[in-house]
């Protein structure tokens, strides 16, 4: 099986879907001539032409609205944000238009479109370029929210997102673009709304998505070798709809859980996961579910402070020790 990067996996998904369906087009800043700010769309202008790989001015609200209107008129737009930080300028069209059109039209106007781009912190980009808005978008009925962690998942989920008849917020990771993984040549898709067990375990469930999947897998290795703790790593993959069944069946087995996410703690994804668990599996728990998140502060530029703000492996280990009562 070929090994490719997350970036290439997204590129392949876009190419395959555009070749398959002439109503799919890619629109955003620098997607064409420049080959993509993060090179996700490399070579696509040459393959599909400027009518389907559309460079826009810096006008997020405008081009996102144009995507909404194109979807209403029967196209399947893929709107790229250079980063999700910039998408805040377009949130009116995502939330007020795309998420509501089907409902407020009484079912007449579906919105088959994808909003995608990198989110979360990279390295020393400062407060305005280092934000994970996962829970913001997951809050909105009418949107689906996907956040893949691996090249295999990125490709299969993006293909499903493009074929979906709903507006899909597709959160990529700036720090994930170079991650490599096995991706088959054969056609495949991954259904939206299905979590994936990335590592089997019996002692504690680490619930994670996007960048925190690799972090959780690394921690799970360390827990196994240093403490003999078998951690199960559950990658949510889709945040809305949330795969509650997968979360509950894992926690019912391990009786313990830690939710690891890149966003801020207040009203975060972990808050929702913990709520689902306590309501449905309270009697199965042997310890409170703990959460590891980004620190509740804007991101500092300073390298040391930035490291302290991000969810750290040591914080996950400490949380696992607490829920397994292995505290020193």
């Amino acid at each position, binding site marked *: 099986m070929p090994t490719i990067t997350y970036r290439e996996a997204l590129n392949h998904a876009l190419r395959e879907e555009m070749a398959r369906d002439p*109503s799919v*087009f890619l629109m955003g800043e620098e997607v064409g001539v420049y080959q993509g700010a993060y090179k996700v769309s490399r070579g696509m202008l040459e393959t599909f032409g400027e*009518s*389907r790989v559309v460079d*826009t*001015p810096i*006008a997020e*609200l*405008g*081009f*996102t*609205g*144009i*995507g*909404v*209107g*194109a*979807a*209403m*008129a*029967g*196209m399947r*737009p893929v709107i790229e944000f250079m980063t999700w930080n910039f998408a805040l300028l377009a949130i*009116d*069209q995502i939330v*007020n*238009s795309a998420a509501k*059109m*089907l*409902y*407020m*039209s*009484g*079912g*007449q*106007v*579906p*919105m*088959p479109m994808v909003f995608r781009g990198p989110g979360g912190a990279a390295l020393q980009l400062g407060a305005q370029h280092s934000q994970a808005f996962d829970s913001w978008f997951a809050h909105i*009925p*009418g949107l*689906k929210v996907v956040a893949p962690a691996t090249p295999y998942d990125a490709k299969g989920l993006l293909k499903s997102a493009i074929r979906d*008849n*709903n507006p899909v917020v597709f959160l990529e990771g700036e720090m994930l673009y170079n991650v490599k993984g096995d991706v088959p040549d054969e056609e495949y898709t991954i259904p939206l709304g299905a979590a994936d067990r990335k590592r089997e375990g019996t002692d504690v469930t680490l619930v994670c998505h996007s960048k925190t999947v690799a972090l959780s897998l690394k921690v799970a290795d360390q827990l196994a070798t240093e403490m003999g703790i078998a951690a199960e790593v559950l990658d949510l993959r889709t945040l809305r709809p949330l795969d509650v069944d997968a979360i509950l069946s894992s926690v019912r087995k391990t009786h313990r859980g830690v939710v690891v996410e890149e966003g801020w703690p207040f009203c975060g994804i972990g808050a929702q996961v913990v709520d689902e668990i306590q309501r449905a599996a309270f009697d199965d728990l042997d310890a409170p579910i703990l959460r590891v998140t980004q620190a509740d502060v804007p991101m500092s530029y300073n390298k040391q402070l930035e490291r302290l703000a991000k969810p750290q492996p040591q914080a996950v280990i400490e949380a696992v020790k607490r829920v397994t009562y292995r505290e020193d």
Partner: protein
Amino acid sequence: MNTAVTSPALDANRRDFYFHIYRQMLLIRRFEEKAGEAYAQGKIGGFCHLYIGQEAVAVGAIAALRPDDYVFASYREHAHALARGTAARAVMAELFGKVTGCSRGNGGSMHLFDAANRFLGGHAIVGGQIPIAAGAGFAIKCRGTDQVSTCFFGEAAVNIGSFHETLNMAALWKLPTIFLCENNRYGMGTALERSAAVYDIAHRACSYEMDAETVDGMDVLAVHEAMKRAVTRARTHKLPTLIEARTYRYMGHSMADPIHGHYRTKEELEEQKARDPIDQLEIRLIDAGLMTADEAQHIDADLQAQVQDALRFSDESPDPAPDDLYRHVYAD
């Protein structure tokens, strides 16, 4: 850039067309009057923005479109749906929140949709529909067909960012889209002169080298001619146009707002009513011998009966079922 638009002379061969637009304007007037009454009776909830005074704009413009063209509007859009061919029953039932409404009761006054007639909303965030309409223009361009997308919005929307972002892209990409600004002089209670550095809205198209014209929005035939020129530009030459139609609303911003008061005088309102678009057309048709006063009365009686029927239908229609709460959040 601007074309001086005068009302075209009447052509006896177009009598049917004149009757059609006269009927449409009068239907909207009678519909809105009854909607105002139903609101006062508590049968219509929320915000309800009436179109009385502006009828010439929606009717004159939409009469220049084909059934397969796209139409987008703001939250003051009962008229646009009616002019596009949505049944008075379906529009009134939507205002009543009934399941027989054109948006199944989920939209209300501000979110009328009729996809079969290519009327795609009903958008209640000021200016939100401007890029959306250009998006339909983009889809038309992608498919290489010769449809036109038309966007109606008020003059207060020209001060928000998406207006400028969209006009720039529509001109840059040559999108077959008509931006029709209904300048009724007030954004809620703020006069144009108090909110815009440039009062001449059509002038704003200069920034994007887009064709533009200003038209008397109280003259339905003048609006129609200006719109026909814009449609040709879009359909044949694949170019966008900005039209400013100078009109006036007789009612308050919404049913919750005063008709006049701090922001405009009663005298100004009465002065504008002397230019009433329906009266103007009626007088011209009668003077030209194309319509009799009897015919006008007959049409009015017929339309009032149609609106009464819509009210009765809406009263008798059921609410959506409780199960409908969770329908249409997601498409299959």
